[in-house]
C-alpha cells in the first residue's frame, strides 16, 4: 500500500512520461479479505490486492485510453505510446470536455479506518463462526459473506489537478435457513469497530425463526411496511434514472418533472457530504468536487444529475455524484410502524428487481427472507413470498409513515417506510 505522497509522485512521474501531450491519470488501489460461508461452513476464503492505472491522452476533441495493472516504467511508457496513437486515430467527439484544473475539495468525514486493513483471516473466520454456531444450535443453516476492503482513488492531470481519497468498508451479510423459511441479517460500516457481529447474527436468527411455516396469501394490493434494506433496493432504480439528459429527451419518468411535486410531501432525499455514518467520496467525474444537493424536497423534484457536457449545454451546474444519499425519516422504529398498521405486510427484503417499463418506472421483483402479515398493529405470522409489480413513484406517493433512517450501505442512509396500495401479482412456494 502506497502513501498518498507516493501515489502523487507516481502520477507525476506518469504525467512526465506523457509530455508534451495533454493527459489525465486515474489511479485505484484495492485490498480485500472475503470469507464466504454456506451450510454452516466456510466455502471460500480469499484475499487479494490490486492496483490499476488508467491513462487518458487528449488530442483536441480526440481521446485515447489505456488501463493496466502493470505499473513499472516500461509498461507506463508503452501504455502512453498506445494511448497517444489511439488519440490520433479516434474520430472527434463533439461532446468531449476539457480536463479540469485544480479544484477545491470540501472537508468530509473520515472514511478510512486502520482497523479494517489490520484484520486477519483468523479474525474474519472467528466472526463468521458466530452466526454459524447460532444456526447450528437451532438446527438451522447459515450462509453469508464477510468482506472487508480498503480502497484508494486518485486523479492527476497535466492542467495541475490532483485529488485523492481513501475509504474502508466492512460488510457482513448472512442468511439463516430453517426447514420452512429464512431470515437475513446484515451490517455495513466504514470501521470494523462499529460492527456488532452478535447483533447481525441475532437479527438473522430471529428473522429466520419468525419466518418458519409461512401461510398462504393471495396476491392483491396491500399496505406494506418495507424495512430500510427493502426501501433501498427499490429506490436504487429511481436514482439510476436521474440523468438530466435522459429526462430532457423524454425516456425516463422524470421527463418534464423538474421543479414539480412527484411524490408524497414526506419525501426528502438529498446528497449529503457531512454525515460521518456515510462519508462521501470527495470527487466525482473528472475530479469534480462533491457537493451537497437536494434531490426531493417535500416531494418536489429539485435536481437531476447533469454530467459536465449536458450541464454546459443547458446552462446548469454539473453534478459530481448523486451519492451518498440520505432520506429523512420520522422519529420512530419499524416496530412502531407495525403498531400503526391496521392490515398489511411487513417485508424484510426484496429480490431480483427489474424494469417492466423504464419510462413509467414500473418495476417487478420478489419478496425474500421474511414476509409477515400485520393486523391491528401486531404481526400475525409469516406468509409466503409474493411477486410484485409496482413503481417506486407510487410507493413514495402513498407513504403513511416512516422510521428512523439507517445506513444500509456505504452510499445510502434510508428509513423503513409504510406505504398503501402496493401491488402484488402472483404467489410463490419458494421459501
Amino acid at each position, binding site marked *: 500500500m502506497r502513501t498518498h505522497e507516493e501515489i502523487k509522485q507516481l502520477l507525476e512521474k506518469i504525467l512526465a512520461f506523457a509530455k508534451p501531450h495533454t493527459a489525465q491519470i486515474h489511479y485505484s488501489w484495492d485490498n480485500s479479505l472475503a470469507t464466504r460461508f454456506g451450510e454452516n461452513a466456510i466455502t471460500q476464503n480469499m484475499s487479494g490486492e490490486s492496483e490499476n492505472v488508467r491513462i487518458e491522452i487528449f488530442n483536441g476533441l480526440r481521446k485515447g485510453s489505456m488501463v493496466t495493472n502493470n505499473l513499472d516504467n516500461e509498461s507506463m511508457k508503452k501504455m502512453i505510446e498506445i494511448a497517444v496513437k489511439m488519440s490520433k486515430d479516434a474520430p472527434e467527439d463533439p461532446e468531449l470536455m476539457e480536463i479540469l484544473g485544480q479544484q477545491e475539495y470540501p472537508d468530509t468525514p473520515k472514511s478510512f479506518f486502520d482497523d479494517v486493513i489490520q484484520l486477519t483471516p483468523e479474525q474474519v473466520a472467528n466472526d463468521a463462526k458466530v452466526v454459524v454456531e447460532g444456526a447450528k444450535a437451532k438446527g438451522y443453516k447459515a450462509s453469508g459473506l464477510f468482506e472487508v476492503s480498503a480502497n484508494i482513488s486518485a486523479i492527476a492531470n497535466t492542467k495541475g489537478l490532483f485529488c485523492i481519497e481513501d475509504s474502508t468498508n466492512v460488510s457482513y451479510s448472512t442468511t439463516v*435457513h430453517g426447514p420452512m423459511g429464512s431470515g437475513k441479517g446484515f451490517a455495513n460500516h466504514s470501521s470494523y469497530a462499529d460492527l456488532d457481529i452478535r447483533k447481525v447474527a441475532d437479527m438473522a436468527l430471529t428473522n429466520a425463526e419468525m419466518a418458519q411455516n409461512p401461510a398462504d396469501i393471495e396476491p392483491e394490493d396491500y399496505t406494506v411496511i418495507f424495512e430500510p434494506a427493502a426501501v433501498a433496493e427499490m429506490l436504487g432504480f429511481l436514482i439510476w434514472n436521474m440523468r438530466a439528459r435522459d429526462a430532457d429527451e423524454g425516456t425516463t419518468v422524470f421527463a418534464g418533472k423538474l421543479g414539480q411535486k412527484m411524490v408524497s410531501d414526506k419525501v426528502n432525499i438529498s446528497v449529503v457530504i457531512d454525515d460521518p455514518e456515510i462519508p462521501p467520496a470527495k470527487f466525482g467525474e473528472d475530479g469534480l468536487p462533491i457537493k451537497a444537493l437536494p434531490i426531493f424536497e417535500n416531494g418536489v423534484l429539485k435536481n437531476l444529475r447533469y454530467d459536465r457536457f449536458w450541464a454546459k449545454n443547458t446552462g446548469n451546474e454539473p453534478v459530481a455524484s448523486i451519492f451518498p444519499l440520505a432520506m429523512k425519516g420520522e422519529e420512530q422504529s419499524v416496530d412502531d410502524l407495525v403498531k400503526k398498521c391496521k392490515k398489511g405486510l411487513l417485508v424484510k427484503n426484496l429480490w431480483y428487481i427489474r424494469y417492466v417499463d423504464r419510462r413509467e418506472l414500473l418495476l417487478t421483483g420478489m419478496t425474500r427472507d421474511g414476509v409477515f402479515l400485520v393486523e391491528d398493529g401486531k404481526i400475525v405470522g409469516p406468509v409466503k413470498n409474493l411477486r410484485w409489480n409496482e413503481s417506486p413513484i407510487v410507493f413514495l406517493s402513498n407513504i403513511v409513515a416512516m422510521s428512523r433512517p439507517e445506513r444500509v450501505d456505504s452510499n445510502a442512509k434510508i428509513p423503513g417506510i409504510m406505504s398503501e396500495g402496493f401491488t402484488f401479482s402472483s404467489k410463490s412456494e419458494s421459501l
Partner: protein
Amino acid sequence: MKEFTDVALNAAKDAGATFADMRIVEERQNRVYVERKSLKLIDETESSGYCVRVLIDGAWGFASNTKLTRDEVAKTAERAAVIAKASAKVPKEIPAVMAPEAKHIDTRVGPCEEDPFAVPNAEKAELLLNCTNAMLSQPNIVMAYGYLQFIKLHRIIANTDGSYLDLTNYFANPMLNCYAVDAGESQSRGFQGGAKQAGFEFIRHIDLEANAAKWAEEALLKCRAEDTPRGIMDLVLDPMHLALTMHESVGHPTELDRILGWEANMAGRSFVKPEMVGNYKYGSDVVNFTANNVLEGGLGSWFYDDDGVELYSFPMVKDGMLVNLGCTRETAPIIGWEKSNGCCRSDGFDKPPINRIPNLYMEPGTDDNLSPDDLIAGVDKGVYIEGMGSFSIDQMRNNFQFGGDMFWMIENGRKTKPLKKVTYQAQTTQFWNSCDAVAGKKWWQPHGVMNCGKGEPMQVMRMTHGASWTRFRNIAVGGAQL
C-alpha cells in the same frame, strides 16, 4: 511460466495441501462505446495476475497477486495456506475433496479468424457511429448507443494432479440499442444476437449497420402499439428470447452449488434436488436440453474449466426428464458422483472458481420442416415475442416473469398487430411442461450471454444458449401493469 507454477505448488504441498493449483491469467480488452453521436469510450485494458488455491485438511484457502516473481509466488502460496487454516475454524461437515481428473498437458487456442486488436479503433468507432446515426435519423429516435468489446483471455493452469494447461480464448461482444419517444411513451429496440467466441469476423457477419434503421423503426412502432393483452393464452418465443428464459429457469436451477445451499445468501438456492436426476419431469416430451462446453463459438467453450477438467457435451434434460446437473470437482463427490462435468470457472485471477452454467441449449424439434410460421398458425390467441426484456425469478427459481424486446398479437393463426409492455408469468416446470412444439433445426440459433452475475463478491461469467422458435400453451400474460 512453469518455474513459477512449480514454486507455488511446492510451497502449497510443503504447507500440507492435499490439492493445490496456480492459475496465471492475462486478459487484454478493447472497448469502444458510442452514445448518440459521441464517442464516449475508446480504450484498451491489459491486466495480469495469478492466484494460488490450496486445500488443507478439507478447507480452502485462496490468495491472489499481481507481482510475478519467485518470492512473491511463494508468499502468495503461503498466504493461501494461512487462509485455509483459518477456514478450518468453521469446517465443513464432510471435508472437501476433489473428484479425480486425469493429468492434462495441453496448449489450445480458441477460434479467431480476424484479430480484433489489429482492427483499427477508428474503424470500430466509425461502425458504431454509422449505426447510431442511422438510428437517430429515424423519426422520434432520441437516443441510440452502441458498444463493441473484445477480450483475449490467456490462462495457464497448473495443479498438483500434474496438469499444465496453456489456454487462449477470444470473445467478441457487440451491442446496439435505441430509444424512441412518442406521445409520452418511450420504448427501446436493438440488436439481440448476443456475443460469440470469435474475432472481428463475428462483427462483420452480424452487420449491425444493415439493421440499425429497422430496429429504430420498431422502437417507434412499439411506442404506438397497443398495451399488452391480459389473460391465459399461448406464446411463441424466438431463440433470442428463450436464451434468457432457459438461463434463468434451467441453467441456474441445475447448478449443484446452489442445490447444496452454497449460494443461499445472495444468488439463492434451487427447487431441484439431487435425487430428482433421472426421475423428474422438468418439461414436456419435446423439451431437450444439452450442456455443451465444446460448442463451436460457445462462450463457455474454454477447453478446460478452472478445475482443470477437460470439457465435453452431455444431456441435461432428455425427453423432458432431468438427467444431469452442472457440477465441479468439489461439488460432484458430495452427491456421490465420481467425476466433474466441467462447470467450474472464475472471472479473473483474483476470484476463486465457482459452479457456473455451461453452454446450455434447447435442442431443435424432430420435424425439420416445422417452421416458426407453423407454430404461429397453431395459435388461436396468443403473443409472439422476440428478444430479451424484463426478467425476474425467485431465489428458488420457481416463480418467474419475463418481458421481451418486440411483441406481436397472434389471432387465429396470424400475427395481427404489434404490442408493447408484454410480460408473462409462470412457475418453471409448469412452463416447460406446457411446451408443445419446437421448430426444426434450420431455425436453431445460438445466443451468447456475457453478463451472468453470481457469487460473493460478484463474479460475471459468460456462456452460450440456443434454441429454435418454440410454442407454449396456456400461460398467464399481462399481469404487470401500473
